[in-house]
């Protein structure tokens, strides 16, 4: 955990209700893929946990969905604004776990952290297939960015307006990708539906309403096969065998 003061470089919608925010700093902003930040929000007591979509030494890209007053306040911020962040939170994805070919599955805003995951896996020489699920075509995120990294990307939409008609579970059964390790991030019903379809060589990035984001308050605990674990501190990424679903 580090405190970082950043400057807002850009903050604009990329899909209905979804914003891409880029931040710069003269301090190191590198994150492991799958880690998150806690952003202080004007007029709010608690920070907002946002997953890191992409990080570089001096730049951070966050994709976030406006779901309430806090994220709405973030969406209203203009370039040039200063932001107070806690960075480097959570454990992140285990890219070492994949030996040859990775499958990345994202649903909705859960696609956000897959960007850096894909970048880092590709940099490590791994094959990457991505399945992305959205409600409708206008909500599609990151497809072009992931393809530009050399990943094979399949999109599913629940209303059939683009790509495979259905959910990521349908996409998984239609595409039948070859992979030795899978990474999943998305809404809980999606992850629970994928859980029985994936082998033990997979991991899931979870989300819960958080207090601190730093392991202090025990607000975001889940039960695992090894006892209670804080999503913010021991997670947010959990290996499949830890999840008692």
């Amino acid at each position: 955990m580090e405190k970082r003061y950043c400057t807002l470089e850009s903050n604009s919608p990329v899909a209905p209700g979804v914003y891409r925010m880029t931040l710069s700093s003269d301090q190191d902003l590198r994150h492991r893929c799958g880690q998150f930040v806690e952003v202080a929000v004007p007029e709010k007591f608690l920070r907002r946990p946002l997953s890191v979509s992409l990080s570089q030494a001096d730049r951070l890209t966050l994709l976030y969905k406006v779901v309430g007053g806090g994220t709405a306040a973030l969406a209203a911020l203009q370039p040039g604004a200063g932001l107070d962040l806690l960075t480097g939170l959570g454990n992140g994805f285990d890219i070492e776990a994949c030996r040859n070919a990775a499958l990345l599955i994202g649903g909705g805003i859960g696609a956000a952290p897959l960007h850096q995951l894909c970048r880092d896996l590709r940099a490590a020489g791994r094959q990457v297939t991505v399945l992305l699920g959205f409600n409708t075509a206008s909500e599609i995120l990151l497809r072009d960015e992931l393809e530009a990294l050399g990943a094979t990307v399949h999109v599913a939409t629940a209303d059939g307006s683009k790509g495979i008609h259905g959910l990521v579970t349908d996409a998984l059964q239609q595409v039948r990708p070859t992979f030795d390790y899978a990474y999943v991030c998305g809404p809980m019903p999606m992850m629970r539906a994928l859980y029985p379809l994936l082998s033990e060589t997979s991991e899931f990035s979870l989300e819960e309403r958080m207090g601190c984001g730093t392991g202090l308050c025990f607000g975001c605990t889940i039960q695992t096969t090894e006892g209670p674990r804080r999503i913010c501190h021991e997670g947010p990424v959990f290996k499949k065998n830890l999840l008692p679903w």
Partner: protein
Amino acid sequence: MVNDTSVTLAGIRLQNPVIPASGTFGFGFEMAGCFDLNRLGAISLKGTTLEPRFGNPTPRIAECSGGLLNAVGLQNPGIDALVSDIAPRVRALCKTPLIANISGFSLDEYGICCEKADQCEALDFVEVNISCPNVHQGGMVFGTDPKAAAAVTRRARKATSKPLFIKLSPNVTDIVPIARACEEEGADGLTLINTLLGMRIDIRRRRPVLANRTGGFSGPALLPIALRFVNQVAKACRIPLIGCGGVASAEDVIEMMMAGATAVQVGSASLHDPLACPAIIDQLPKVMEQLGIEHLKDIIGIV
């Protein structure tokens, strides 16, 4: 100017009065890599019960103006894990006095936990929580009635010779008889206040935000309420007080001490800024300088 921040709490010297409050600082490990825990006056560890507890279902957190509600429900690994594993490991990381925060669901549970804490060399204080609003038996039941508070204190007093603090609830019509009952039964001090019982409703889903329906309200909005309670109890009791509730700055620490606190716990501020305690400790000498305070202990209860 001297700017002496040290205080003596039930015979134990603290280099400064700033203590992370139980439930807002984990077991101390979490921040060990972020700042030197030796800088803290003391650490009040996560509330511990006889048996391990998962706590309440999520959501456990709801934001409010000026703070938050929590309904964590005493998630903890149990007293045996605290005394045999956790406390010795925290002790190995720092020399800071450690406060075991004990909760229970019966007098015996409080008693057994205090006995076990008493036998643990790594622990310096025992703080008995009779004010948790987020469990459905025990907890706050013991803190809202002078006779029950007296019974817990008596049992805890028998169980430990370590400095014993009782953590009081603000969810009462009159705190003074409860505070006095604890003092009469041999408590070395009192910690006050725990959270105020509260509730939030998700108006779109038409249901409580918290899975537990209600939770404990904490945060900066509590400061004036905590000051009033501390001042009221300071006038009625002779034992030292640890003031807790809404403290977020060095000025707040001084205000709490003027109200009657010997030491001060910082709670929710750490949830917004995990470095809140060291930041407050850094600021204390500067604020003392501005206010012409040479020895912080001189201002305890001056109002």
